[in-house]
């Protein structure tokens, strides 16, 4: 599992859980607030209902009052001649009624019933003059007379579905005053009816909004549940609005969905931001270090960048230090592996490696390679006569002299210095990147031969040793390393054969000497 996946696996559930908890708390808070709000709204709407009802009740009371106290009504009551009453007096009651007509399209009607329940007057301000007084309104009047109710009001619905707010009052037949209870048979009933349109509109709107019926009752009601409003419309009329549970549940569901979506969205955003930060400041540097170490292992880079301080910085610095130390150890081992312990210059392994490299360059750049095979003459006698310690010292001095001659000649000829190595025993080899006929090679050969002129001195002791040098080059003398070695070897033997302390160029050897093959295999 990568660091990023590990971080995600840690962050995701924690953040999600956190936001889920926050979302649940928010939902609970909103739910409580919603209930309070709904309650307040419901109470306010119920109050509007009450207020509207009260407006109509007030209008009815005023209408009742004005008609009852009008002279026309008194005249009407006192008149027994029905024809005259209708012809001359009824219009007065109509005028009284019209004096309080709200003129806002509110339907108002006024009816007068005799004590036997007979309707003797009816007038309204409606737009259809041919309607007759509804049966429910007549029944209400009859009941009021029968029950001897001095005043009574109610909200009724006619058979055609139209609601009316009724208010009736019993009055004394002659005086229009409140009747004496014992003489109620002499009373007439004055009844006002109003179509409570605004009340009905509010009621219908409320019922539509809450998808419930508003309960009406002549007896007191109590709120039914957490969200329920009760208003007293009239002394003996109560209304209760109780939205069904499904109404609030729908609202709750909305809040739940919003809370859940918000929590999830915020979770994902937070996780995204956190993961971005973790990647930028934690896993990113580790991945980068990993990439650099891999690069070093793949030999695509040399070093490691240290990304500042901190744990990852320190880790990078330690890895770099470790890498450097390993590199140094490797280089030391390599040097030991390629160095001749007696002379301190390169050994046969080193020589072979360089030969391969020079050959590679010869093939790619066309730069010729020339090899000088140097064999010390009479070295065995030094070992025998002066001891191995002296022999070793001689070999070391020859090696240093070869290096010096190589460097000086290269400097003098403005050429790249070649390399020198000890093959084994008294054999040395020099490799340069130049053709055998160049001044460089010629000078070098001369310079080496000159080192042995009259023997070779080491720390004041002159040893009777000389050098025989075989020179061969690629591609002139051989196209492979083996051929080159063989040719140089051959040339060296030829130089030895011609009297030692001389150099022989393979290219100059007589054909016979060349074809005799290599007398010695190494």
């Amino acid at each position, binding site marked *: 599992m990568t660091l990023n996946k590990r971080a995600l696996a840690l962050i995701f559930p924690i953040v999600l859980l956190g936001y889920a908890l926050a979302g649940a708390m928010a939902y609970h808070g909103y739910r409580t607030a919603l209930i309070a709000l709904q309650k307040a709204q419901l109470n306010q709407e119920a109050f509007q209902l009450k207020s509207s009802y009260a407006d109509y009740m007030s209008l009815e009371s005023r209408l009742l009052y004005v008609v009852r106290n009008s*002279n*026309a009504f008194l*005249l009407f009551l006192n008149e027994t*001649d*029905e*024809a*005259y009453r*209708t*012809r*001359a*007096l*009824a*219009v*007065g009651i*109509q*005028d009284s009624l*019209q*004096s309080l*007509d709200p*003129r806002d*399209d509110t339907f108002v009607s006024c009816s007068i019933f005799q004590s036997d329940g007979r309707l003797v*007057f*009816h*007038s*309204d*301000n*409606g*737009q*259809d*003059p*041919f309607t007759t007084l509804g049966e429910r309104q007549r029944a209400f009047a009859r009941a009021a007379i029968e029950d001897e109710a001095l005043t009574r009001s109610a909200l009724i619905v006619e058979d055609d579905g139209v609601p009316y707010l009724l208010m009736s009052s019993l009055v004394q037949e002659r005086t229009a005053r409140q009747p004496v209870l014992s003489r109620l048979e002499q009373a007439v009933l004055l009844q006002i009816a109003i179509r409570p349109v605004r009340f009905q509109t509010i009621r219908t709107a409320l019922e539509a909004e809450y998808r419930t019926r508003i309960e009406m009752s002549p007896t007191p009601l109590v709120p039914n549940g957490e969200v329920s409003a009760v208003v007293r419309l009239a002394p003996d009329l109560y209304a209760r609005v109780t939205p069904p549970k499904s109404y609030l549940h729908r609202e709750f569901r909305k809040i739940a969905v919003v809370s859940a979506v918000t929590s999830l969205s915020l979770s994902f955003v937070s996780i995204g931001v956190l993961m971005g930060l973790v990647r930028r400041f934690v896993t990113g540097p580790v991945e980068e270090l990993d990439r650099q170490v891999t690069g070093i292992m793949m030999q695509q880079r040399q070093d490691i960048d240290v990304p500042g301080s901190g744990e990852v910085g320190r880790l990078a610095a330690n890895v770099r230090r470790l890498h450097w130390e390993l590199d140094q150890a490797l280089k030391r081992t390599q040097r030991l592996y390629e160095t001749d312990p007696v002379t301190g210059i390169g050994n046969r392994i080193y020589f072979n490696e360089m030969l391969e490299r020079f050959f590679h360059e010869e093939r790619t750049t066309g730069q010729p390679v020339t090899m000088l095979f140097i064999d010390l003459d009479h070295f065995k006698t030094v070992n025998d006569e002066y001891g191995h310690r002296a022999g070793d010292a001689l070999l070391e001095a020859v090696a240093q002299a070869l290096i010096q001659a190589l460097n000086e000649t290269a400097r003098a000829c403005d050429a790249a210095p070649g390399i020198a190595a000890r093959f084994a025993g008294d054999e040395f080899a020099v490799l340069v990147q130049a053709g055998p006929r160049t001044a460089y090679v010629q000078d070098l050969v001369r310079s080496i031969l000159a080192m042995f002129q009259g023997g070779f001195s080491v720390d004041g002791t002159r040893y009777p040793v000389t050098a025989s040098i075989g020179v061969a080059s690629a591609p002139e003398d051989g196209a492979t390393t083996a051929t080159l070695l063989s040719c140089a070897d051959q040339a060296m033997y030829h130089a030895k054969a011609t009297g030692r302390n001389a150099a022989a160029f393979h290219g100059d050897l007589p054909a016979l000497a060349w074809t005799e093959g290599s007398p010695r295999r190494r």
Partner: protein
Amino acid sequence: MRRAGNGEVPRAASKSGKCGPVCLLAGLLVLTCVPGARAVSLNLLIWEWDLAPSLAKAWTGTTGTDLNQIIFDNGERRDLLIANVEAPIDMAVIDSAHIDALGQRGLLVDQDRYPLPPESRSEARWRSMCGRYGVPYIWGATGIVYRTDRLATPPESWADLLRPAAALAGHIAMTDDEEEIMAAALGFLGRPMYSGDVEDLKRAFAVLKAQVPAVLTYSLPVTAQQEKSFHDRIFIGLGNSGDQRTLNMTSDGARPWRFVTPRDGAVLWVDCLAVLTRSRHPDLAERFVAFLARPDNAARNAIFLQQPPTNLRAAALLPRDMRADPQIYPPAGIPVEYRRPVPTDSLQLRRRIMSALVAIHDAQ
């Protein structure tokens, strides 16, 4: 029934709160209690501009008693005042269709007790219409008043008023008197104006309802004309012969108004003078009745009112052009219907029709 007057006072009062009868009554009470008023005065309930001022002056000059004219503009409200025993009224102008109900209720003096001299007696047809309780005062027809400077073609029938041309929409004044408005609609339908038949009334209501959008106001043209908001906006209306005179009096000097009797039929009415039994000066009131009934006074009054007198002797005193004026005497050849009481049991329905028309109009 003569809308000869504009009834501005009660009309305005009724507009501002429908206290017409109440205000009028209060006014009457004040009138009778004014300190320093002459010892004897007569209170006459009458349409506005329904009595020649010169006659009123002559009466006061002759008798030394004041004549107070109390103005009304709606027959039913007038009846209510007469019915109210508190209202200090000595005499009233009452149309023949209403007088009997009030007389039989004992509110009016029986005129048989005060016989007029033969020359002061009206035509028999008018006398029979006024009956025992009234003396014929003036007669006329119900028809259409219109402005000659606004209508290219003079109206000829009820259809021109009830099914008005588009150009007249918003320029029509109808009355708020159910009897007259129903007379027009029933006349248009070819039915008797006093019909109590519910089907007739339904059809009449339908005709009037269809006219509502074109109506400017449900008040008498003579009343509406004097309201600032309607002034100069009324081109045609339901009126009575004589209304053109009042309208022209209030038309800024021009005299564009004319009256026409619809060719569908002439609805003829007669106004009667009645003395109330509660009058404190019944004899003086009867003297006033006799004063107006004199042929010379009746002729003077008719010339002022531009309406025909009920007395043929008085009619003979009229100028020739007046006698030939079709605005005053309905042209011959038009069917004639005399106004009579509508059935009592249809009254409430008729009143509801009237109030429904106003309600529909207000709702617009």
